[in-house]
């Protein structure tokens, strides 16, 4: 039996750092990933797609957002989509699933809202054992029932759960919605499909986090997201065959501690970012934490190369921090050896060297003075 394991679609997610255009593109791409998953299933000959939690980002999505993924799935009538609630879209009385149930779901979409074995594939005697989150956070292991859950002999028991594997990550988050590390073994599961972690992560041979199909943050652990898992079960006791498949379009990259001190540094940064996806820089999102000291000329170079040109090249260039202007008395010679402008520049330089918030401000003012001077020179020249 073959199926696709995916999770954490987080439909309806917004990105604070992104401008409106980028945001629209990112959101559209998340929906588009569903189509890619459907195509992947067809391509792989898988009849089922298991979506293990967090289809939606919010508990109360707008009507349009609510129906967007459902309608995408409806388009693949030949594929059976099995959904369970996640911590973002827990099955609360008036939650998303209740709303969808009221409005009716397509035949090929099944939302598992009660724990217990469910026969999903008669031919393969495959039974799904969903763990159902009724609230955002629970402190009990909802997969515990699987140990005792009865299925026909030789059934393929496939666990579906959304939560944190206890004792694996060690994060604080793992306190909520815990899943026993050895649940697959104890419950005799052929496969335990897990959701909640956005990067691919294999706990053991049968216990796997698929990660999100479209990356949604700069700091995703594990495989970094943007993929789905194609699982082939050859039998209840056989080890599942795992194949990771890229489904994401955007590449998210975080660059920490970029220190700029020279022209070379600036050009290196430019090259580094452009090399992330040389053939498609438009699908790259970069977050760079920038610092350093630049001379007057280098500062101008930084402005033109990074702030203007590179920003236009990538989908999103998010910069925190900025290089500081490193100007000396030599630089002030541009303003001549005397005169009012030079006097003003000297004054600002002295202020900026004093440091502090005022120094920062003086430095910025000085930087602008250089720019204006340069512009005037350019005009005069």
């Amino acid at each position, binding site marked *: 039996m073959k199926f696709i394991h995916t999770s954490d679609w987080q439909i309806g997610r917004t990105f604070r750092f992104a401008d409106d255009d980028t945001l629209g593109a990112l959101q559209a791409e998340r929906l588009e990933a569903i189509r890619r998953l459907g195509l992947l299933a067809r391509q792989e000959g898988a009849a089922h797609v298991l979506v293990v939690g967090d289809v939606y980002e919010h508990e*109360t999505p707008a009507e349009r957002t609510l129906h967007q993924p459902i309608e995408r799935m409806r388009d693949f009538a030949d594929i059976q989509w099995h959904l369970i609630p996640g911590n973002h879209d827990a099955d609360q009385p008036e939650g998303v699933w209740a709303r969808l149930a009221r409005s009716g779901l397509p035949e090929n979409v099944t939302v598992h809202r009660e724990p217990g074995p469910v026969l999903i594939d008669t031919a393969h005697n495959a039974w799904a054992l969903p763990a159902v989150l009724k609230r955002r956070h629970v402190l009990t292991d909802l997969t515990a029932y699987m140990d005792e859950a009865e299925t026909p002999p030789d059934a393929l028991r496939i666990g579906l759960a959304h939560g944190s594997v206890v004792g694996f990550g060690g994060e604080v988050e793992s306190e909520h919605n815990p899943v026993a590390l050895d649940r697959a073994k104890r419950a005799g599961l052929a496969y335990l499909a897990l959701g909640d972690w956005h990067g691919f992560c294999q706990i053991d041979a049968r216990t796997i986090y698929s990660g999100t199909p479209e990356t949604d943050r700069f700091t995703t652990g594990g495989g970094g997201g943007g993929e789905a898992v194609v699982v082939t079960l050859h039998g209840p006791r056989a080890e599942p065959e795992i194949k990771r498949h890229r489904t994401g379009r955007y590449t998210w990259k975080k660059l920490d501690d970029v220190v700029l001190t020279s022209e070379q540094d600036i050009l290196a940064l430019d090259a580094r970012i452009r090399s992330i996806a040389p053939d498609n820089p438009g699908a790259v999102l970069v977050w760079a934490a920038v610092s350093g000291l630049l001379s007057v000329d280098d500062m101008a170079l930084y402005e033109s190369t990074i702030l203007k040109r590179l920003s236009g090249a990538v989908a999103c260039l998010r910069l925190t921090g900025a290089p500081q202007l490193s100007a000396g008395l030599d630089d002030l010679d541009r303003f*001549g050896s005397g*005169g009012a402008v030079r006097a003003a520049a000297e004054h600002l330089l002295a202020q900026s060297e004093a440091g502090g918030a005022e120094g920062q401000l003086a430095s910025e003012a000085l930087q602008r003075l250089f720019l204006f001077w340069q512009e005037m020179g350019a005009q005069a020249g």
Partner: protein
Amino acid sequence: MILTDLQIEGFRRFASPVRLDGLGPGLNVLAAPNEAGKSTLLAALKAVLMVRSSSKAKPVKDLQPYGGGAPHVAVSFTWKGMDCHLEKQFISSKAFTRLILGTERFEGDQAEEALRNLLGLEEASKSEAAGLWSALLVGQGESFAQPDLNQTGQDSLRSCLEHGVDHATGGAAASAVLSRVRDRLHLLQTAKSGQPTGKYKQALEQEAQAQACLQDLQNRRAALEEDLAALDQARRALREQENPERKAQDEAELLALRQLRDKLRVADAEEQAARAALATVTHTRNSLCDEQERRQERRETQRKLEREAAEMQHDLQALTQRTAQARQRYEESRTQREQAEQQQQAARQALLAVSRRVTVLQQRAALDRSKQTLHRAEAACTRLEQARAVLAALLVDEGLIRRVRKAVREQDAAQAALNARATRLTVTLQPEAAGRVLLDGAACPQGEMVLTQAADVQVEGIGQFRITPAVKDHDEALAAADTARQQLQSVLHSAGCQSAEDAETLFEERRQAETRVAEARAAFVASLPTARDERDATLFEALATLRQDLSDQVAALEREQAAFEQDCQPELAGVLGGRADQAATETVCNPEAEGGVQTDQTEATLQALQQKARQEEEQAARVADKARQTERTEQAAYNAAQNLQDKAETALRQKQTERDQLGRELAVSAARESDDALAARAAETAQAQAQAEAHVQALKAGRETEQPLSVVETRIMRREQALENARTSIARLREEIKERETRVRVAEGDGLDEKIAEAGRTASRLKLDCEGYERERAALALLDQTLSDAEKTQTERYLAPLVRTLQPAFSTVFPGASLEMDTGFGLCGLTRRTAEEFGKLSDGTREQIAVLVRLGFAELLHARQSPAILVLDDALSFSDSQRLELMFDVLADAATRFQILVLTCRAEAFARLGGRPLSLRPIPQITERR
């Protein structure tokens, strides 16, 4: 630089060539009437110095004469000892520029370039150069305003000024940067108030809006969550309420309780009835006992009352007796009091009678005295009248005797006078001759005689002798003597006297009579008690009054006497009768009977009597007082006794009434039911009560183990209430669930979470934007501030020499004034006593200042050893003669350093300026230098 020659042709009104004659160093004055071409001359000078010959701009075309042509100017000047020449022709195809500087020679653009370098001009536009020179060639009307320097002009000035300061100022660059900074800054904040504007303002507003929107969304989200929680709660509560098992159990319990209640109610009613019966019997028995007790009590009371009444009766009798005695004593005391009062009255009457008698006696004595007085007065009066009668008989009074005496004296005097003149006759007769000699018939006396008249002496025997006195005026004297004698005789006659001696005697008598009259009168006056020595009439009146008074007194006395006798006789007799002696009584009663002999004695007696009567009266009064006192005491005692008696009677009556009442009540009771019957009934009732009590105790003992009915009923009520509440609660919960569901349905479709995320994103982006704008704004503001400060500092540094240059000329025209310049080289204010703004000064002053400033610029150029001249066209037209004089001084002084051309239409006014006179002279053609 000194202009030495200027020739123009084809320039506006000068179609034909003209030359400005007389140019030389120092002050040059062209005084010519209006429309002589002064302004054209200046325009030509400006054109040749500052406009490219190749220019085809409108200002150049405007230079053409009316008929058209190619403006052509040639100017010669000396510069640094070199002879120089500049020539330009405009517009035509032959337009050219030629500049000869000493030995150097330039043509075309080269010439233009060299000229600009020489004059320090810069390209203002394609065709025109500009600089400080435009401020030095001052056209008509331009002198009213301060020179409006363009950037080049300012730069020129700056370069002049920077010459004197340590560093190049770069003022122009600073201005340019500053204007850029401000352009950018003012996109973010307003120029005036520094408030955010443009995109920054928009971003701030949007951020606030976004925050508000976010807040609103979060509120709605909170409301939704609250709804969801409440919905969950309500649903659970509803399930609980609707549990059918619980309901059935509740109802069964309720039924059991109701049955128990019914049973308890029956038992309760039974017990109630038994208790009621017991209560009735007890009540009857109690009332019977009460009745018996009451009867007994009444009887005792009746007896007691009777005893008390008897005692009171006895007391009352004693009291009545005492009252009667008191009354009797009271009556007696009253009688005594009346008697005493009568006696007092009698004594008082007697006293009064005696007193009246005494009064009568006193009056009578007074009357006697009055009578005596009258008698005396009347006697005196009689004597007076007699004296007066005697006096009246004596006629010779003072006046008469004086007349007599006078008449005697006059007669004597007349006789004497006669005698003096009379003849003396002395006769001495023998004794034998006596009788024989007769004189005038009478025996002749012996001795000397005086003969006043003819006297006849007869001597017996001898004959008769007639002697006639030879007296002068004998007759008059004689007559006088006669008259005197007659007078005397007349007087005497009137006095009734024979002679003067008689008269004297009579007079003496009269005097004595008068004395007697006076004595009598004095006596009469003395006799009158009231009169003084007044007129006789008054005295007689007094006498008459006296007489009248007396008669009145007598009459009054008579009346008094009569009245007294009528009034007092009986009392007096009565009072005195018993005790006083008869004589006294008589005396008192009939005082007149005794006569005056016994008056004194009577009075003494009366005094004694009066004294006695007074004592008796006082005695009687004391007795009466005492009697009254006694009466009052007795009366009080009587009243008290009476009071006591009344009270005792009342009390007795009350007791009797009470006793009778009790008696009646007892009788009625007995009539209704006899005492024996009552006792029998009481015994029966006691038995019945014992039975009833036993019954109640039995019932009570039977119910001790049962639950109290009230508890059971409360429980039932509580159960029923709970059931009812559950029903209501279910309805309410359903209602609430429905309501909440509706709200949730409405809200959930909105996608609040998404909206919140979106709004948060927008808000944070806008916040970043605002922060960016603010950083930008702050940096620009700081830059603006810093640059402005630097420029100001620099400007102040290089303005100092300009101010220094201008100051002497200013001090000449405006003594004591100091000036202020702004960075644009304008004079912004003048401080004389107080600071004055340039714009508020008078036209004349402003023009003078404008000229002085231009003069200063020229001074600066000159000091820097740059070419400088000043041309003024029709300037100083608003100046008064004194200022004009001062300005002339300044101009003349400046002209010692550089050349000044003054073009004026006011030849007379400017005649005092002196200088070289210039004139325009037509020439055949412009002298070209090749």
